[in-house]
């Protein structure tokens, strides 16, 4: 009922706002440079015969206030306008950069599997003091038996606060894109990194862009403890 009331009759595009925002901003800048006069959002709205608010919402500097689902006819008008003005731009060009699978739909997630509660030993992230802190009764959706939990004593990006519990499967086969717990000889703490393969090189990337990726060289002493299969995030 709610959806029927909120959905318009026009088909809406599922876009990330960065794509249309970036592309439209670029087109307008290019036009301003070419014509040697500032081309404004008001002028664009007038040329497209749409409300000015539609264009300002597409180009809003604040990402939270930006419209991320413009109507198909609005996008079509933008493409037609810039093509008529001498720019070669297609529908796909305007959407270029859209990573179609990067947004994960919440509603389509399957929760059919009944979780089982298991007592799992908990350790700290310290590599020097491998003391068992106790156990945690955790609801898990995996039937793996070789599980161990690590409790973080600091925030781990992108969302995990101090006190979050990382469940490690020590036997799971590691695949590209998985989070792994790795112990490096020159680090006092176990690291949580994303596993990648680039040719013959194994690269571990942090979710924090400030940290440099680690390339696992033969000379580097390391041990991958296992795959992070579940995180109980501290709220």
């Amino acid at each position, binding site marked *: 009922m709610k959806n029927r009331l909120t959905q318009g009759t026009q088909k809406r595009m599922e876009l990330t706002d960065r794509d249309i925002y970036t592309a439209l901003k670029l087109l307008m800048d290019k036009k301003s440079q070419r014509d040697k006069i500032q081309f404004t959002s008001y002028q664009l709205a007038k040329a497209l015969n749409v409300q000015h608010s539609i264009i300002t919402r597409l180009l809003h500097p604040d990402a939270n206030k930006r419209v991320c689902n413009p109507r198909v006819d609005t996008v079509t008008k933008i493409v037609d306008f810039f093509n008529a003005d001498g720019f070669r731009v297609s529908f796909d060009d305007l959407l270029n950069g859209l990573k179609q699978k990067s947004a994960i739909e*919440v509603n389509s997630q399957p929760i059919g599997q009944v979780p089982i509660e298991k007592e799992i030993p908990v350790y700290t992230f310290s590599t020097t003091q491998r003391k068992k*802190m106790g156990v945690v*009764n*955790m609801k898990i959706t995996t039937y793996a038996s070789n599980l161990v939990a690590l409790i973080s004593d600091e925030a781990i990006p*992108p969302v995990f606060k101090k006190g979050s519990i990382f469940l490690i499967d020590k036997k799971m086969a590691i695949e590209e894109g998985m989070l792994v717990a790795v112990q490096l000889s020159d680090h006092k703490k176990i690291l949580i990194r994303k596993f990648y393969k680039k040719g013959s090189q194994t690269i571990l990337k942090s979710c924090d862009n400030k940290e440099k990726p680690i390339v696992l060289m033969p000379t580097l002493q390391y041990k991958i403890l296992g795959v992070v299969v*579940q995180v109980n995030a501290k709220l």
Partner: protein
Amino acid sequence: MLLKGLLKKIDQWLCNYLNIEKEYVQPNTTQIDQQKLVITHTLPFKRHGLKLPWNQFKSASFDHLSTVNQKKLGMAIGKSIAKGLVVSFDSLSVEKPSHEK
């Protein structure tokens, strides 16, 4: 404002009559954008979807979600971060092993 209130009442009445579980906030997608987790969600009678960083969504809306939607959100967040990852939000505490109790 009056119309908004009236529409809200009608929606409430119809949802109760049809036995539809009503939630104020409906999370739609999760995405990692510039190393930050972003949640898009909708509100009743709002035309456009809203996009919020995870911390803001969590403090404003997470507690209003049903248990089912919290679980689905956790699964979606896990998938956004890494392959095969599930995120849960249970209240857990570290205890002594059962054989030591």
